[in-house]
């Protein structure tokens, strides 16, 4: 086993264990902590796939942005004095069966598909290429996504107001 393989298994184990903590813990703060480490693990997976820019983006946006937003959501919507920090579950047995079925189908499809084997080069820095592509091939999606972000943020600020009419 090479160092790459060892790193992959370590990061994958961290990611899956944190995701399991997020899913199976009843305490909503533990859910958030599990999600934090799952995001870190996914960033590590991106690094292993040679996607350096996306790994940094993952850390900045998910860990620094979305997770903080979710924690604000937790703190603004829970009553800390009571036992409301616990989050209940519904329909656990049928849901587990459905998810196990979905997992079985996905894994079977992954194993049965004859993926082409390509020779991999060493990972190269991607930031320059991504910047060039944003200003050339992907200019229209880039502009649309920036307008979408503006609209979403204005809309979120409007909906979140106390007396939204």
């Amino acid at each position, binding site marked *: 086993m090479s160092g*790459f*393989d060892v790193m*992959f298994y370590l990061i*994958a184990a961290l*990611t899956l264990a944190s*995701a*399991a903590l*997020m*899913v199976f813990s009843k305490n*909503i703060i533990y*859910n*958030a902590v599990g999600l934090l480490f799952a995001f870190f693990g*996914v960033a590590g*997976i991106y690094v292993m*796939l040679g*996607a350096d*820019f*996306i790994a940094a*983006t993952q850390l900045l*946006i998910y860990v620094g942005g*979305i997770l903080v*937003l979710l924690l604000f*959501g*937790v703190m603004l*919507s829970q009553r800390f004095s009571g036992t409301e920090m616990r*989050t*209940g*579950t*519904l*329909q*656990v047995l049928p849901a*587990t069966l*459905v*998810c196990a079925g*979905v*997992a079985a189908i*996905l*894994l079977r499809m*992954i*194993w049965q598909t004859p*993926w*082409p084997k*390509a020779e991999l080069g060493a990972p190269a820095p991607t930031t320059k*290429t*991504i910047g060039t*592509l944003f200003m050339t091939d992907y200019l229209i*999606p880039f502009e649309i*996504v920036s307008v*979408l*972000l503006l609209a*979403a*943020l204005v*809309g*979120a*600020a*409007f*909906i*979140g107001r*106390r007396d*939204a009419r």
Partner: protein
Amino acid sequence: MQVGLTHFLVLGAMLFCLGLLAVITKRNAVTVLMGAELIINAANINFIAFARYLDKDIDGQMFGIFVIVVAAAGAAVALAIVLNIYQRMRSVNLDEADSLLG
């Protein structure tokens, strides 16, 4: 067995199923949102694994960036809706928000 495309796809599939389980079973709306973020991350792992192993170009990574941006926009709007529900009903349990149920 050497780590290859299959390993990353299996990891993505398992993350997806964990996220799906959270979305289906949790009562708290914020936790359901956390599960949705997990699903989005699983899909993104697949995009970037395919970009590394099947494609000589970097288009899969571009898709990954757009996915992250749209997920951020979605999370902001969804949390605003959750806070509004809390202000009206003093609860974010999804099974109690049934005003539209006939």
